[in-house]
């Protein structure tokens, strides 16, 4: 746990100094008063400054994430349990239960939205970014497989028809999968066009020289 000891003319002043030093807000810390200030005689002799020790509370972001999700599921009327795995700053949450289809949504857009909002909630007061991945029924892995196959299929089509193909809008993560799959393809190359959130991957024929 990070902590500092600071002094000031008043307890509040000492705490403010500590917060500045720790780059924390008042509700992220716990404080312990080490010395109560006294003005001494005539404000000169024996005057003592306030001394405090300020600790940064452990960021219980796992709890924050799970609580947030539980509240959402409750309002959805969906029963789901969260399996949490935390590796350094990577938080992966696997949802288990029935009716997971409704949480995934079309092309995983609901799952992505839930994941993005959870990430915002978790990272609201954290100093260091925590990456949040939410998955259910192995959706992310299956989706990756689907995209890899789609990329290969479309690459063949481009090669055959000698005409570029524009894919539908995808998020950065999904676009990366397409780019990576065709990175070493000798016949076609890929690039993205358009603005988020409608950015699309284009697969085009390599110029033969």
């Amino acid at each position, binding site marked *: 746990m990070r902590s500092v000891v600071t002094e000031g003319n008043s307890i509040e002043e000492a705490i403010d100094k500590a917060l500045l030093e720790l780059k924390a807000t008042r509700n992220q810390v716990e404080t312990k008063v080490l010395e109560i200030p006294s003005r001494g005689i005539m404000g000169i002799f024996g005057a003592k400054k306030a001394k405090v020790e300020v600790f940064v509370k452990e960021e219980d972001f796992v709890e924050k994430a799970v609580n*947030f999700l539980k*509240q*959402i599921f409750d*309002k*959805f*009327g969906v029963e789901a349990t969260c399996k949490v795995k935390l590796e350094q700053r990577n938080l992966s949450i696997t949802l288990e239960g029935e009716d997971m289809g*409704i*949480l995934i*949504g079309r092309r995983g*857009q*609901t799952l*992505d*939205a*839930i994941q*993005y*909002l959870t990430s*915002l*909630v978790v990272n*609201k007061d954290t100093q260091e970014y925590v990456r949040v991945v939410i998955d259910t029924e192995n959706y992310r892995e299956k989706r990756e497989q689907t995209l890899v196959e789609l990329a290969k299929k479309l690459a063949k089509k481009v090669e055959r028809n000698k005409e570029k193909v524009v894919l539908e809008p995808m998020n950065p993560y999904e676009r990366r999968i397409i780019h990576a799959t065709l990175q070493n393809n000798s016949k076609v190359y890929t690039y993205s066009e358009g*603005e*988020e*959130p409608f950015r699309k991957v284009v697969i085009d024929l390599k110029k033969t020289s």
Partner: protein
Amino acid sequence: MKELVEILAKSLVDHPENVEVREIKKDQSIVLELRVSPDDMGKVIGKQGRIAKSLRTVLKAAATKENVKVVLEIMQ
């Protein structure tokens, strides 16, 4: 629906006490008016409306389950 918006918005903003949601029912659809502190607007809209879009996606999923149409309006 109203409660879902409240939970989502309150979790995102710095001033949850200023989150206000009004529900207006119209035939088959529900309009939800969300009001937050002026300095929290960015926290519910996001860059290029990314947060607002995610909020609407989650709401739409919940609405589909209840077979209603829902519109989220973020009020100034």
